[in-house]
């Protein structure tokens, strides 16, 4: 009973809110104050050509730290919840020769692509999160092709721990040197070059490693069934 009333209330509320979004947030109009600043001065202040990256890593970098934490949390929680799970073991079928041969050649290419995506985050669309996930997908391919293949938990844990700590240290260095957490303490360089934008590529590389390790860990934990 309560549930039904709740759902109806929820829909009334949603309807109202969506109506006011459509009515008052007119489509395609410039309505920003803060964004103006980012667009006009963003490249000068951060040295990043991709303004979204500048916003994600610097202006709202604290959110991104939180976001990394959320992923870390999910990976930890998943490991904790699936800890000691035993299922009736199903038949383990080795995958076909075509898949495993293809995987052997494609795996390094996907890793390379993922790395490219997170290293060039300040120049082109992309960045640490998709880059890390692309790397994790390479491992997914590996898991599918070689069902007995293992990535050791130690390696993953070490990678995510180190990357996380380095991220925090980078932030603290900004606090020490410029009196503001996550401030850009490296030279900004010339926008458009690979080595530019100060700490942005550094942070995106750390995020890439961290996300890659965490997502691989998630997939590995879910895969682990027959033992």
């Amino acid at each position, binding site marked *: 009973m309560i549930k039904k009333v709740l759902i109806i209330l929820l829909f009334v509320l949603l309807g*109202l*809110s969506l109506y006011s979004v459509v009515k008052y947030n007119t489509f395609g109009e410039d309505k920003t104050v803060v964004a103006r600043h980012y667009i006009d001065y963003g490249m000068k202040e951060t040295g990043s050509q991709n303004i979204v990256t500048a916003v994600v890593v610097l202006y*709202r970098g604290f959110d991104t730290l939180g976001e990394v934490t*959320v992923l*870390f949390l999910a990976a930890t*929680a998943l490991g904790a919840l699936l*800890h000691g799970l035993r299922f009736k073991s199903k038949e383990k079928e080795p995958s076909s020769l075509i898949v495993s041969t293809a995987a052997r050649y494609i795996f390094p290419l996907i890793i390379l692509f993922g790395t490219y995506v997170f290293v060039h985050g300040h120049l082109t669309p992309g960045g640490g999160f998709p880059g890390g996930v692309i790397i994790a997908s390479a491992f997914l391919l590996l898991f599918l092709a070689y069902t007995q293949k293992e990535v050791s938990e130690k390696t993953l844990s070490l990678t995510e*721990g180190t990357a996380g700590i380095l991220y925090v240290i980078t932030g603290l260095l900004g606090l020490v040197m410029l009196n503001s*957490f996550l401030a850009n303490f490296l030279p900004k360089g010339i926008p458009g070059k690979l080595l530019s934008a100060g700490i942005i590529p550094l942070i995106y590389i750390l995020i890439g490693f961290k996300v890659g390790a965490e997502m691989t860990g998630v997939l590995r934990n879910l895969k682990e069934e027959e033992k």
Partner: protein
Amino acid sequence: MVNPILIIAISLFGAFFIALISPFVKRTGKIIAFLTIGFDLYIGASLALKSLRTPVIAYTAGFKPPFSINLVVEPFSAVFLLIVLTIGFLISLYYLAHPGEEPEDKFFTLLILNLMGASGIIMTGDLFNLFVFFEITAISSYALVSIRKQKASLEGGIKYLIISSIGSSLFLVAIALLYGQTGTLNIADIAAKLPFINKSVALVAFLLILVAFFVESEIFPFNGWAPDAYQGAGEGISALLAGVISKAGLYALIRLTFTLLDLPLRSKLLIVFGIMTFLIAELSALKQKRVKRMLAYSSIGQMGLVVAIFGIGTIPALKAAIFQGVNHAVSKVALFLLVGMVIKNLGIYKLDDYKGLGRKNPLLGLLFSLAILNLLGFPLFAGFWSKLSILLSTGKQGLYLLLSLILTGAIVEVYYYVRFMKILYERNEEASHLEIHLLEAIPIIAMAAFIIIIGVNPGLITPLFEKASEAIFMKFSYINLVIGG
């Protein structure tokens, strides 16, 4: 120089450090969590002290707000920060002697991050950052609730997750609405621009935010998850829910509705929903057979009472609400930890199984009674002063209907708690003896000491609440503080 960011940075450092070394050295999580949270508390306490003189603001990335995210500690947030971190520290102290849930290292990582999320909710000055910390707290809570992997805990966890996810999506819609209208995400900046935006948009955003944070602060009708979560979780985690997670949700609710959306409708909605929660939860507590579930309903009821008193909105009422919130946190955490000790030693859950326990174990009985009497507002305990100021501030506003409803609920509360105490002190030769580990008992004894000292001399702490209620009452000083300076 103390910086609020250190709380976040140190917690993250601790959590990542556990992840780094746990494959090599097992079972270090407990110690690292204790040290990390202790350090957090130290920073939080010095921040709170400093904020009483001048509010502390820190901004990230080297850009001033509203262009970057800022953290603010002023008296109102300082009080909540102190509650959350102190309770968190006491819980981590309790876990030093009490086995954590398995796998232990991951459990303590989640605990650290949960406290980090709660302190982030309290300190942040940015709406979207609030959402991020809200999610950190929420995700770690789902995991902490269900980590026991029993039927009840999994069920509590998934219910909490589903309801809270819908709530947080609504919050995101509210953010989209407010951002579309004001073009900024800084809470103070939005508050400053709010008079110039469309009233109906503000109203809808207000309702969405209300729903999102009613879920977290366990207000009817969005609290369907809470009894199951409390019941299924480990006892330390139930204490965490009562003392930390719901308090962080309450802070966000009050901060946003008072600073951001100062609408005339506010006090009516808060009072109506709060008092409804109070009455329904107290009546449900009456028929519970399991101790933990009874405490859970009582906890929900108290949250409702606090929200209703906040809704009145005058300075004495705000003061009373904060005081009651603190008392509830202290008492309820002590009760849950005591129940945890009983369960660890004897493995009993039902109300009737507690027969004679207090008579057989004087210390246990004494601590139980102290916490309960404080909750009921017995004279010369801290709870007496907060209950008294609630009644006075309600009466002063002429809200006699509200007053009578509060009294009704309070009588129900007295009835089932006194019944519980009678069971505790009943004559029963078969009652078992309980071994109390000193380390486990320290946090509870500390809280009992707090209850008595404040009960004898409430003047020790009321000036703090006075400052806090002034800080939340005058929203323009907050706005000036953040974007004026």
